[in-house]
């Protein structure tokens, strides 16, 4: 059996000096290239789990392992986020002062020194997302679906091994929602990436080969 790419052991996270327990001891293993949907009610702890998996936060206890190495100790979180993780958010979180192509270049600024190379790569990624005709638009000039496609291109900028998507279709209509999911699953297959999606939409969760339910800070199934 191959070792998991991501593994969490006895993961706990509490806030407000322990008064709020978001995660109450989660164990989970995810293999490289796996497509996992995590569902749960609001406040169940699914976003907290995603943040810990992505190295955005540190657990109160327990550990997150990436390729058997614990995050935050043997693996630097900044480096991990820059090189291994691509984040996609429900609210897109594009930088409003930058054009679409510039938004995609931002993550690469610490990785590729050559600005031409960054721009060329950003253009190629946007073209791959079907956004080749909207390179120079600002986020407020794009539709919600287009913004999410730019956000996906940005998440792929540094060629990460894991894509973490937090409610990626939460702000989209059904047509755009389907289109974005088609892109995400296509990328996952084409690149062999690990895709972890947080969603409350059963239809999306059903499409994933693996479905993890989380309830009151614990994994149900």
């Amino acid at each position, binding site marked *: 059996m191959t070792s998991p790419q991501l593994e969490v052991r006895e993961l706990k996270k509490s806030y407000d000096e322990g008064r709020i327990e978001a995660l109450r001891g989660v164990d989970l293993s995810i293999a490289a290239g796996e497509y996992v949907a995590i569902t749960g009610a609001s406040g169940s702890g699914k976003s907290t789990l995603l943040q810990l998996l992505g190295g*955005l936060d540190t657990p109160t206890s327990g550990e997150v392992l990436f390729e058997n190495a614990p995050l935050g100790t043997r693996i630097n979180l*900044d480096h991990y986020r*820059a090189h291994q993780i691509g984040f996609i958010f429900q609210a897109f*979180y594009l930088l409003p*002062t930058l*054009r679409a192509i510039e938004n995609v270049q931002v*993550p690469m600024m610490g*990785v590729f020194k050559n600005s031409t190379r960054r721009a060329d790569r950003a253009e190629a990624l946007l073209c791959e997302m079907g956004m080749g005709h909207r390179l120079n638009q600002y986020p407020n000039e794009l539709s919600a679906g287009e913004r999410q496609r730019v956000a996906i291109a940005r998440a792929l900028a540094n060629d990460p091994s894991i894509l973490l998507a937090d409610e990626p279709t939460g702000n989209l209509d059904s047509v755009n929602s389907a289109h974005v999911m088609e892109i995400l699953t296509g990328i996952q297959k084409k690149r062999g990436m690990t895709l972890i999606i947080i969603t409350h939409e059963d239809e999306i969760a059903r499409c994933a080969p693996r479905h993890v339910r989380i309830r009151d800070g614990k994994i149900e199934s």
Partner: protein
Amino acid sequence: MTSQLTFTGFAWKNLWRRRLRTLLTLCGIGMAIGAFVALVGFSRSFEHEWQRLYSSSGTDIAVVDKNFMNSSVDQSIQGRLRAVPVVEQAEPMIFNIMDITPEVNAIIFGWLDDSYEFNSLTFSSGGRFHNGKPELILGEMLAKNLDKKVGDTVELQGSTFTVAGIYAGGTALESGAVILPLDQVQQLTSLQGKVSGFHVRLKAAPLGESPEHYLKRAQAEIEAALPGLNAQGAADRASNNQFVTLAHAVAWGTSCIALLMGILGIANTMAMSVFERTREIGILRAIGWKAWRVMMLIQVEATVLGFVGGFIGIAVGWGALHLLSRLPQTASVVSSSLSWDHFVEALAISVLSGLIAGAYPAWRGAHLSPVEALRHD
């Protein structure tokens, strides 16, 4: 063409996003640097004119009392001073500042009519005054400001003097000054037999002795011959007299206050900017930016403000110097020229101000928790 994003370009876009605030901040730092350029430029110009005053007349040493402002030396020591072996010439002189009109005050020199210091002046009309007569000569700039020509009269402290000549001085100080016979100034100031000091020309340095060593030796010899008096090298006297020291102190003091205001302005802008962009900083951290890179972005923004503000300030300060050099009240001590040293210094101070002002906001921005920052509304 594909739009390439550079680090500085990103910083500039962030600043340009809040144009009004950026422009107001630039005005703030610009005014601060402008005040620095004008005030310090003024004081340096003043010092420079003093140095030129001594060098153009060929004075090597000034012999004065310990206190420059109220220096009072007996004129009778002239003979003893001339007897010092290294002294070629020693001329008594009086220095004062008087109101010529309610708007115009000028530097007054009292000289003997055969002083070697006349050699640095070129008369454009008339000629030297004569000892014992109520005559004076005016620098061209002052004559123009007073609208006086040879033969006109000038009232000084209730006494009337005839303009004997108008000269082009080697320096702005001389050009804006009035020179009278020594005895006439002594009468005006009721200090008969007293002078401000002596200007000394030394004999040529002996072969093999360096000018610096010779000057020091001459100073020591004069001070030994005239105990209680101070023999200062001309350059040292130009830089360290109390007028120049006071001008420098006022200029730097006022500039520091203005710069502090400018720094606070940038710090406020950057702190506001970091607060407003908390979520964006969270996004940058989430997509892999290291804390130091976020810190650098904010520092670059603050530095750009300092850099651009510096250029604005230099333009404002240079404009102010230009204006001061044309005003009758200040024309005699200010030249409108701005040295490269002063330009670079002002720009460096401005950039440094930006760096200082951006330090705390940058540190705060870089140390935000990515999760907390992403949650920020």
